[in-house]
């Protein structure tokens, strides 16, 4: 297992408000890492900085053996990063098939048919994305990841607007993607589902991050229990 992406000692302020004071994010080959944190604690900001979507005030991003003080999203993407934002990835201007073809041709990616079959979205290929439900959209986006065959996947709240049954399916898909050697980092609030799927837990709070290790260790961390898990403890115990 090797470190594919590392955002180290990241700080970021928006005007007067300091969102991140010293946060780090790591993505490791073959691992599914989950970042938990309350709303507004900086998870999305951290993941956007790691993807090169926004610039940090200070800190560095290392990707695929290269260090970047000001990483550019398209440069990292060319090197094998794929970023799923906290809004829909696909454009409403083109069909799902066309956008998957764009990804496949650009990077000499995997077969579209195999990817949509795997994600169970074959019937949606010729539809525009805005006609799909939240769960279908997320599965189509994961089909895009499979077509792209990235080295690292950063997914910001991919379980939003998804029914619990679909969330389980998505979590399985993330696990499968990680098992093919992709370094996967996911943020979200679906604690039981994500803890079951994760290899490693990172807690983002008060502008910094804590590496809590595997889920079994993370749930025993008292500060994490008090500061984040709270009401979820019962469902985890079950």
């Amino acid at each position: 297992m090797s470190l594919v992406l590392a955002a180290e000692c990241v700080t970021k302020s928006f005007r007067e408000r300091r969102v991140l004071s010293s946060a780090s994010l790591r993505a490791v080959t073959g691992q599914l890492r989950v970042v938990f944190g309350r709303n507004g604690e900086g998870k999305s900001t951290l993941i956007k900085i790691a993807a090169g979507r926004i610039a940090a005030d200070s800190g560095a991003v290392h990707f695929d053996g290269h260090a970047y003080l000001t990483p550019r999203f398209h440069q990292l993407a060319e090197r094998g990063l794929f970023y799923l934002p906290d809004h829909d990835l696909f454009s409403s201007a083109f069909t799902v098939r066309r956008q998957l073809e764009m990804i496949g041709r650009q990077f000499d990616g995997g077969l579209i048919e195999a990817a949509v079959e795997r994600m169970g979205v074959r019937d949606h290929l010729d539809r525009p994305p805005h006609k799909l439900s939240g769960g279908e959209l997320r599965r189509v986006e994961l089909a895009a990841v499979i077509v792209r065959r990235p080295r690292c996947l950063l997914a910001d709240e991919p379980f939003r607007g998804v029914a619990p049954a679909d969330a389980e399916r998505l979590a399985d898909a993330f696990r499968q993607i990680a098992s093919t050697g992709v370094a996967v980092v996911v943020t979200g609030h679906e604690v039981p589902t994500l803890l079951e799927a994760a290899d490693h837990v990172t807690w983002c709070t008060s502008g910094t991050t804590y590496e809590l290790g595997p889920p079994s260790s993370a749930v025993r961390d008292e500060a994490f229990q008090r500061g984040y898990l709270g009401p979820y403890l019962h469902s985890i115990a079950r």
Partner: protein
Amino acid sequence: MIVRAYVGRGARLWLLTRLAVGIVALFGQLNPLDVSTRSSFGFVVLTTLACAAETTRRRELVLLGNLGVSHAQLAAFFALPAIAGESLLRIALSAFVQ
């Protein structure tokens, strides 16, 4: 495939911009087919800005980033058809005048 899609958008929006400005110019009793350097430059800039606004509105920047397309490349995709259109228009009009 990406180039075709976004150059196509650039061409459509250049045509629409030309048409809209032409109609307004007609109402103002101005030349609707003004191809002076200043006017052509204005149309290229206007088309590029309109394309950028459309791409942002459709939230396509992340998809394009994932495809390895930089903002500069994207601006070139948008400006190219406008530059070509303005050049063709200028050539066609000068041939017509002669």
